[in-house]
């Protein structure tokens, strides 16, 4: 690994393990993304499920208290944004936060450890952080997009939603129908794209900085410059990882809140 040139090192860490499932470039599966996200989703949601299954109104244990605290946090966040029933929006927010957080958390595993293990297991490439894959973030953000459309229809009816598409925000003059529609489409599409790109961009950039700092580590040697490079690599990686703890939480929270806000906005009448 240390013998690689810098661009190979970076490129290698940015490559997914893929399997072709059909003709054409689209029919490819990023196996690492899928497996990692499944495992993380199962661990995260499974843990909460285990607690939820045995949850009683008796005095809760430590784990149950923690899960309930988290539950109250999500519930409160949704309640602040959306006044209606939280029977769907609540679990949606919970799922988003847990899944995104678990996927982001993988960013804190040193990239070279991942590479070493995956090479040891014979995989040519392995990206450990599913949220640095646009497929994951867009899958989630466009799912939210469809929920926005669904709840717009549900809350306003087909006629109401169409009426809103053509008459808001400028007015109901027929001359303004097209500008209204165009603006609404842009606004609707901007939501999932920004949502998915934000998470992807933050995690991808964070990962890239870990790679660059790791690259700095590869030129460490017993010379003066080499020692400085090695030391800087260790210290800066540590500092960036500490800062990253904040980012992964924050990004999970932002994704959750924005999703809830978008779906809640779909319920509002203009």
């Amino acid at each position, binding site marked *: 690994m240390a013998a690689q040139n810098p661009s190979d090192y970076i490129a290698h860490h940015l490559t997914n393990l893929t399997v072709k499932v059909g003709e054409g470039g689209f029919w490819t599966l990023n196996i690492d993304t899928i497996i990692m996200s499944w495992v993380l989703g199962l661990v995260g949601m499974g843990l909460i499920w285990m607690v939820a*299954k045995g*949850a009683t*109104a008796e005095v809760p244990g430590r784990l149950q208290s923690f899960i309930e605290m988290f539950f109250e946090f999500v519930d409160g966040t949704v309640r602040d944004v959306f006044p209606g029933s939280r029977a769907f929006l609540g679990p949606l927010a*919970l799922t988003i936060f847990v899944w995104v957080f678990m996927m982001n958390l993988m960013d804190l595993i040193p990239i070279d450890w991942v590479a070493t293990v995956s090479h040891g297991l014979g995989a040519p490439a392995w990206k450990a952080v599913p949220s640095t894959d646009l497929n994951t973030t867009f899958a989630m953000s466009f799912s939210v997009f469809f929920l926005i459309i669904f709840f717009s229809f549900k809350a306003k009816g087909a006629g109401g939603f169409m009426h809103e598409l053509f008459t808001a925000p400028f007015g109901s003059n027929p001359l303004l129908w097209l500008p209204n529609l165009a603006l609404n489409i842009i606004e609707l599409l901007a939501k999932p794209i920004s949502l998915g790109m934000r998470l992807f961009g933050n995690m991808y950039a964070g990962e890239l900085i870990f790679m660059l700092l790791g690259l700095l580590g590869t030129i460490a040697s017993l010379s003066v410059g080499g020692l400085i490079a090695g030391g800087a690599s260790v210290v800066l990686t540590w500092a960036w990882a500490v800062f990253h703890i904040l980012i992964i939480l924050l990004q999970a929270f932002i994704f959750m809140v924005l999703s809830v806000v978008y779906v809640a906005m779909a319920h509002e009448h203009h």
Partner: protein
Amino acid sequence: MNINATLLVQALSFAFLIWFSVKFIWPPLNRAIDERNKRIADGLAAAEKGKASLVEAERKGETAMKEARERASGVLGESEKRAMQIVEEAKSAAKEEADRIIAGAREQIASEVAKAKTELREQVAALAVAGAEKILQREVDAKAHTEMLGKLKAQL
């Protein structure tokens, strides 16, 4: 970095996780927390009620105590008054009795004196007659001098 079929798989995974969360995670947690909240609220309400009833009981106890104290002091005053009255009555009865006894004694004394006076008069009359007999050396006809003797008795 390119969009491919992974997107579809991830969307399905996401949908599955949401469904799982809606179905199996949210309801039991929500139920447990709601129920505990209700229990805590009930407990707090019960505690509040207990506190209120304690205050009420204390108030009642206080009132009962005050009443008892008032009644006791009333009884005490009443009995003092009664005792005084009894003493007064006894005093006046004793005084009456004493007066009666004194009056009786006086009456008796007066009658004794009168009796003694009468007796004395008789004796004086007899003595006078006897004295006169001695002086005259002869018998005085009591009958003849009855009038004079009667006058003498009345003068004594």
